[in-house]
């Protein structure tokens, strides 16, 4: 009898395990701004959006237009990548059919788009950040309007739609982090009194926890939606941070990188940091992403050194392709 149960259990495993493995397939998107050879008007090497269908894959495939000075990418997770937006020199490119067809949704007024984000719950609502400030669409890119009321220095390098309340927005600018409580109609500067904020990110669990990386002042953490910020210094030997990311499953774990920093990892929610650079031959980072289906798998995008990958939570790294590329942003999606 016992052996019959053992056989049945084994049978269940045979059925269940492959299904679990299948569900853990993910897609990695890498936004390549340029290679070292980029000159406007010249025969430049291919750049733009690349993807790997599974994070086990080793081949990068290109998607969409080439050589558009692509800074960022936003993938709508609920649509499993049917809706994707690209932040580029030419504006905001959008596909609604997983990349088969594309359209530039913005006009001449919106240019050099540095970041774009989509409201997961309502994909008609998107934000983009540009050197000329923040722009918003409420009709999935049919019309974009400028919404910079209250922002002093408009240069905006990252934008956030609060995942718990899409009326609340954040953006990082040249004179700090701003917060809006009305979808961008008005903005107020948060309590962070430093300039040159390159990136701001929000905890996937606690919407009041945000972390900002700056050009010359290191990393700051707020645990109350931006009212007070604390400088995070323990273990940090660098000051310039372009990318910070939370582990989507365990937000106590964070990774950060920037100008010649390599990868820093925190396991205490950004209180202290440890360098994790074994195997990382290019320390000039611009993007880091954690696989939501496997927290140990981390991708690091470098400036002109392509992508590196770790399968052990950052302890060791190996080259993962796109050599020579300036990888401005990476996102890993759970499909």
């Amino acid at each position, binding site marked *: 009898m016992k052996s019959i149960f053992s056989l049945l259990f084994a049978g269940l495993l045979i059925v269940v395990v492959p299904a679990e493995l299948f569900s853990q397939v993910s897609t990695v998107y890498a936004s390549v701004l340029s290679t*070292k050879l980029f*000159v406007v008007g010249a025969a430049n090497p291919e750049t733009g959006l690349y993807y790997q269908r599974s994070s086990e894959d080793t081949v990068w495939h290109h998607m969409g237009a080439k050589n558009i000075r692509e*800074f960022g990418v936003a993938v709508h997770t609920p649509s499993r990548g049917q809706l994707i937006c690209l932040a580029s020199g030419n504006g905001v490119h959008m596909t609604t059919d997983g990349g088969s067809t594309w359209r530039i949704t913005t006009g001449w007024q919106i240019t050099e788009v540095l970041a774009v984000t989509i409201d997961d719950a309502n994909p008609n609502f998107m934000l983009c950040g540009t050197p000329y400030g923040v722009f918003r669409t409420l009709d999935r890119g049919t019309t974009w309007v400028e919404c910079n009321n209250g922002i002093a220095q408009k*240069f905006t390098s990252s934008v956030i739609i609060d995942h718990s309340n899409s009326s609340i927005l954040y953006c990082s600018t040249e004179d700090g982090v701003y917060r809006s409580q009305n979808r961008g109609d008005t903005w107020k500067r948060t309590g962070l009194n430093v300039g040159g904020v390159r990136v701001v990110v929000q905890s996937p669990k606690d919407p009041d926890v945000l972390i900002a990386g700056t050009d010359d002042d290191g990393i700051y953490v707020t645990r109350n939606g931006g009212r007070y910020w604390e400088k995070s210094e323990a273990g940090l030997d660098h000051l310039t941070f372009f990318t910070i990311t939370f582990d989507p499953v365990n937000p106590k774990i964070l990774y950060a990188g920037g100008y010649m920093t390599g990868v820093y990892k925190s396991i205490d929610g950004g209180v202290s940091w440890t360098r994790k650079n074994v195997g990382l031959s290019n320390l000039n980072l611009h993007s880091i992403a954690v696989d939501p289906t496997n927290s140990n798998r981390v991708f690091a995008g470098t400036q002109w050194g392509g992508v590196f990958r770790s399968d052990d939570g950052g302890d060791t790294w190996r080259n993962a392709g796109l050599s020579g590329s300036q990888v401005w942003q990476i996102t890993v999606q759970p499909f």
Partner: protein
Amino acid sequence: MKQVTFVLFLILAVCAGAYAQIVNRETYLKEFEKRVAFVTSVYDTLQTPGYYQIAVRYTHNKEIAVADRMFKELLRDPRGDMFWMIPSIGAYLVGKDKMSAETKAVVRNAWKTYAPYRGDTENHWCMYYSALFLAAEQFPNLPGSEWYNGKSSDENRQEAKEYLIHWMKITTTIGQGEFDSPDYFPEYAMPMILLSHFAEDPEMKTRGTMMTDFLFADFAVEHLEGQYIGGYSRIYQPAVYKPLLSPASAFAYLYFGTGEPTNSGWIVLPALSTYRLPEVIYNIAVDRSKTYIHKERKRVRNVIRFGSEKNPPVYKYSYVTKDYGIGSLQGGILQPIQQHTWGVRYLYGRPYTTIFGLHPYWSGWEVGMFFPEEVKTLIADVVASKGTYNNPDKWTGGSPFERTFQHKNTLIVLYDIKPGTTTEHIDGFFPRNLEERIVDPSGWIICKAGDTYVGWYPLQEHEWKEELETPSNSLNDIGRPQLERVKEMGNWRLRSYKLQNGYVIEVRSKDEIGSFDRFKSELRSHVPKATLTPGSVSVRYGTLGGDKMNFAFPEKRTLNGKEIDLSKTRLFDGPFLNAAVGSEKLTITYKTKKLILDFKAVKVIE
């Protein structure tokens, strides 16, 4: 025989170019057609595929099959963004009634499958949207699925028109951003000439013609025998010290009949167009019988960080004679990377017809003001295409520690350089072919360049360096020098390592002052008095013309006891061009002739 004729023609053309005389309209048009023939003559036999070779073959109705084959070959893998858009739509427009249906289809398909980058500078956008406008007119009523950007023909045409009108408006109200660039003049003139010739929308056709007139008028008034004179937003090496190498000089040859004959690719499409330069502008370009002062207001390229004003003003001052021109911008960072703040250009001694100075500055802060990439890595980005940017020996670029004060043919330049700046020296360029370069005991460096005399009074100790190397002059994919030359054999570099620094420049022609000996003698009795301590850099100087100039760095300029207010500078102010800031209206005057370009009314009044 044919070759002999061609050589004779070339010699005649060279002579005509070197000694341009004012001719009447009828003669001008005849000579213009000769220059058109010269410019295009090479291209209809060239076997290397190229859009200009294609365009000329179609126009000359010669080897249409070859043109078709070249077009299809080039469109197998289009590259070049807006530098592809303009020549390819130009070739299509001149040949669309002659090319095969298959070729037409290949061209059409290219606008569906190849996605050009819009670029990040004013000239990129001007080319991008002009070409897109013309293409959208040629391929009307198509849905977004038939265009590289997913927008319909109507949407593309409308967007392009909106941008172009916006660009024309800011250019005619607060000035061009990428202004007076000897290197980038073609990137504006070409698309405007194509609009003038080919736009079907009557408004855009008129606007194209008016903007072409505007650009040429702006050039003509600061033109001396093929050279663009004055301060510039952008110039490359080697054109900065070999002025006739700049692409604008090719336009001067074609439209003014000055400079040196060239069949540069930049002027092929203009040569094939129906645009003709108005007589009044031609006259302004070539009549140097009277000396004049010309002032302009331009604007700084969009400042996207490290500044509170998006487009601060640029103030230009030029003094033009038949022998030389001296011009300046007020100094500071007015354009990234390739600014030319001041220079003297003269007729004598081609190709090195200039003397100028600069503080060869570079920084992440400077490029971060204008480009959106990360400040920490922007210099590496820039150096990929502008190889001299972070070279301390470079000959182009502005500096936040440099300011000028010009009155007529006297110029004062002051520097108060912060310690630790990327370069802690200033440089002056003195060409090797000067007839005289005397370091006078009075402190003046006194130069003779034919009938032009230049005096340079350094306010601090300095040294001379003879430049030693001349790398090759190959061109990159977009026709720019591959190895931007830093040094030219035998030219002289004045270098001074003092951080509080400056110099006074006096320029006179033989006609103005008489002999070179008199010039030397006058200079010896005019010595500037300077205060040069950190935070307090100033000079008092009585000019050869009897004026008293006081200049305290950075912005206090006093002439004969009266403070100069640069903010009152008009958009154009001189004997030939006049426009108020914000007016959208340029009045072009030559003797009794007048041409008014009224961009508000989209109307030309003669």
